[in-house]
């Protein structure tokens, strides 16, 4: 595996020079207490955005460091690993919040102060006292680091600090608004606030240069690949189209609506401050990499994005669910691959070519976008309590050539993970596997039913999926060959009922002898007995009569539950059809016996009429 920086080819679009609309009241000096976040702002028809774009013409956001950072198990040290070289660093400091990676720096909080580290070396750049205000997020352009601090005790309001590399506070802004995570480009801070605005703020001049109103929630801004993005449930790019954001014409990535286990979010709202120790929210996430389309528009079809348009890198978005990582087609949301990691994934970031996932052991693994193959890894060198990953220009190539593995096999592997916590994720995978017209999918469903730790909820889904299978009969037959056997440690019977339903639907009698055998296995659940018996009404022939007669004799007088009574009636039907004189006699005796329940006797009598034969006298 080798890591390399990609060459960038996209240029910022041409800008129309427009006059800059000044944000009223923004004042200079170190302390800014202004109406920067005032609701007095009036629409400027995009003039502010145009002026910002003009100012940024030819200027790209500084590339961020490609790094993973984690909180050491003792909670008092940050460890980092450079994703390109694998070089590690470590910095000891009390911590009260998860560190954030911003451009080229890592910002941490603890001990009543915030501190800034060089993301490549872990060397301390500066510290500032905070009075205990919680760290919300940070942005950095290589010169200024803009930091958002919240209010203690969950009160509304925020403090923004613009701090120079040397540690001097260039600007401090106090507001009663909730401010999100900022991004910084060439001295301009892109500041999301009140969940719907992004203000562009000139750090040196202290002016609000532009304000963008979005129709969706927005709480985070970041730079990547030289561009500025913001969003929460969707991803917006700051480009020439952003001025039409209110008309919903901005460059935006909105992921297709689809079921995902655990209802993960793309970017968690800032109210959900990441804890020092990762939790379920970190394990259940969605990741997407915004990118710029490189296809020549002249050759593109009308459905193809034109050159320079905002697209999803590799047409993939990703979802994590504890140990299960899934790659989806970003246009339709279809599942493309599943990767099962050895441990829970507690942090990740999407790159141009795939996804980097970080686990509790401090291992960072690169998964290819195309197939989810693990192409290489980096190591933080020790277990971590939480992990953050930033990937900007890093590209990963090489590694072992991917082995062709079908999606069904990948799903099967994920389903085999013996972890009850994954039940919700497994239910989704079962529904996915049910859609595959593949024999291996049938095998996977059969196999997963053999898992003793399988959650009952998942088992119900698997049964439904198995009953609907129309391919893979040989795997289902192989499953039926298996019976409970205490001494051989086969402690779970196969899913006889759903398999019976499948064979009945296929009208395939090859399963009949095996199904008859399972009727006589006391371990076969009653529901399965009922379904197998029902299937045998169409699948059984004379060869199955001895076993079915035995079942009938053993059960007609002792059947007390609805499934067992139903099974007895079904087998009675088979005996009348294929059982000859002996079979008929067995049913006659049951109908005449004082040991037969009245309701069962009535149903057995109905069989005679259906079979066109005279019932025994009452």
């Amino acid at each position, binding site marked *: 595996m080798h890591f390399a920086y990609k060459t960038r080819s996209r240029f910022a679009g041409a800008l129309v020079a427009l006059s800059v609309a000044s944000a009223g009241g923004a004042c200079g000096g170190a302390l800014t207490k202004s109406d920067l976040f005032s609701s007095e702002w009036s629409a400027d028809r995009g003039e502010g955005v145009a002026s910002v774009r003009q100012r940024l013409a030819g200027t790209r956001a500084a590339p961020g460091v490609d790094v993973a950072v984690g909180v050491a198990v003792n909670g008092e040290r940050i460890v980092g690993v450079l994703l390109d070289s694998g070089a590690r660093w470590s910095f000891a400091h009390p911590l009260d919040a998860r560190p954030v990676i911003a451009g080229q720096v890592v910002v941490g909080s603890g001990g009543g102060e915030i501190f800034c580290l060089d993301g490549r070396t872990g060397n301390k750049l500066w510290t500032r006292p905070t009075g205990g205000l919680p760290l919300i997020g940070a942005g950095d352009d290589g010169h200024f680091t803009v930091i958002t601090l919240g209010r203690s005790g969950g009160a509304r309001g925020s403090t923004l600090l613009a701090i120079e590399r040397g540690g001097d506070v260039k600007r401090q802004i106090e507001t009663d608004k909730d401010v999100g995570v900022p991004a910084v480009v060439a001295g301009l801070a892109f500041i999301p606030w009140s969940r719907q605005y992004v203000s562009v703020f000139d750090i040196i001049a202290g002016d609000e240069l532009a304000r963008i109103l979005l129709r969706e929630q927005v709480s985070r801004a970041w730079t990547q690949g030289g561009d500025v993005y913001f969003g929460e449930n969707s991803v917006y790019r700051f480009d020439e189209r952003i001025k039409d954001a209110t008309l919903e014409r901005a460059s935006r990535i909105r992921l297709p609506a689809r079921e995902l286990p655990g209802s993960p979010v793309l970017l968690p709202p800032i109210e959900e401050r990441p804890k020092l120790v990762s939790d379920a929210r970190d394990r259940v996430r969605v990741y997407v990499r915004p990118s710029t389309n490189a296809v020549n528009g002249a050759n593109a079809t009308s459905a193809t994005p034109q050159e320079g348009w905002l697209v999803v890198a590799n047409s993939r978005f990703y979802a994590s669910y504890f140990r299960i990582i899934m790659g989806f087609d970003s246009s339709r949301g279809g599942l493309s691959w599943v990767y099962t990691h050895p441990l829970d994934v507690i942090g990740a970031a999407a790159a141009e070519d795939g996804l980097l996932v970080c686990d509790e052991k401090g291992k960072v693994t690169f998964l290819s976008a195309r197939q989810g193959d693990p192409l290489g890894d980096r190591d933080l060198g020790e277990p971590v309590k939480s992990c953050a990953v930033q990937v900007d220009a890093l590209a990963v190539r090489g590694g072992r050539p991917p082995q062709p593995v079908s999606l069904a096999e990948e799903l099967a592997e994920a389903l085999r993970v013996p972890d009850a916590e994954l039940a919700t994720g497994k239910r989704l995978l079962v529904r996915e596997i049910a859609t595959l017209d593949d024999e291996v999918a049938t095998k996977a469903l059969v196999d997963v039913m053999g898992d003793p730790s399988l959650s009952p909820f998942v088992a119900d889904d698997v049964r439904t999926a198995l009953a609907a299978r129309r391919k893979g009969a040989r795997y289902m037959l192989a499953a039926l060959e298996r019976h*409970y*056997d*205490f*001494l*051989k440690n086969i402690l779970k019977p196969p899913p006889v009922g759903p398999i019976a339903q499948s064979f009945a639907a296929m009208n395939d009698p090859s399963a009949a002898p095996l199904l008859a055998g399972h009727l*006589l*296995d*006391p*371990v076969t659940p009653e529901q399965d007995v009922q379904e197998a018996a029902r299937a045998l009404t169409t699948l059984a022939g004379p060869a199955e009569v001895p076993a079915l007669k*035995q079942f*009938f*004799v*053993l*059960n*007609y*007088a*002792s059947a007390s539950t609805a499934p*067992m009574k139903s099974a007895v009636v079904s087998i009675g039907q088979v005996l009348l059809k294929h059982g000859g004189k002996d079979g008929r006699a*067995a049913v006659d*005796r*049951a109908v*005449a*016996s*004082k*040991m037969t329940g009245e309701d069962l006797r009535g149903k057995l009598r109905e069989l005679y009429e259906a079979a066109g034969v005279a019932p025994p006298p009452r």
Partner: protein
Amino acid sequence: MRHVPNVATGCRARIPRVIPEWVSTRNRSNWLRAAAAVVAVSVASAASGADPASSTPKLPTAPVVRKPLPAGTAEKLKSGDPERIAAALDDVRLAGKGAARLTGEITGLLDRGLTASLAEAALAALAEVEAPVSTPSIVSYLSHRDAKVRTAAAKALARTKGTAAVVALRRALSDSEPGVRGAAASGLGALRAREAVGDLAVALDHRVVEAAEPIGQLCNADECNDFLGRLGRLPFDLMESGLEPILFRPNAEVSEDTKANVIGRVRELKTNEAHKFLQEIQKRWPAGASPRLKTLVDQAVTATNRASGS
């Protein structure tokens, strides 16, 4: 099951702690008297100086005071009336082999189908009749969904005997219910199914407690040594009931060397329970039996006494 040590023979007569469910209320006092009588007979037999190595008492698991078969029992069995059938089956059970002529009627009932409770009673009755001809009908009831019925079938097969019984009981060792597995293991011992020792060993590894005793009763030299290999790996109380029969089997079946090996391996355990076991063996060691083994037992008792700190 409570074990009553037989001082003279070194064997233990077994009195079930609870009266089997199939013993009807009116017969419960009879049953208890019979159980006590069987134990008394067993102790008396041992005290008479019978060869300890060949006098393992063959005790019925459910002793019954035999009664002659009442008139009209056959008619009751044919009546189709569940209550009359139940009463007739009780009579057959009490009559035991004296009701052999009704075997066909009872197997016919089983072959035609019965309620679970009547099936259990029919199987118990066939167990007392001990007619090998009933084995095939009983075997099919090892597939019954009611575990009590399957247990009754396994117990009956131990009495009706036959190759089919052995095959079926070996299969029943894999039943999902412990009671059925236990009855199958005991039944294989009762049938002296030497070919089942391997299966019984696997069952023992799966904590089928009842498998130890038949292994001890049936194992050849290799199988006995294989059994001994489990000492220390399996709990001693699981193994104990299999060790004892090995020591008291005739030398023609189990060599002195194998028995010496048993004593040595138990001695090596150096536990309190090993010491108590050896003490029991020492107490019950028949006068005139192998002096070499007697010495080994004595030494082992002394050694384990010191080691276990008793």
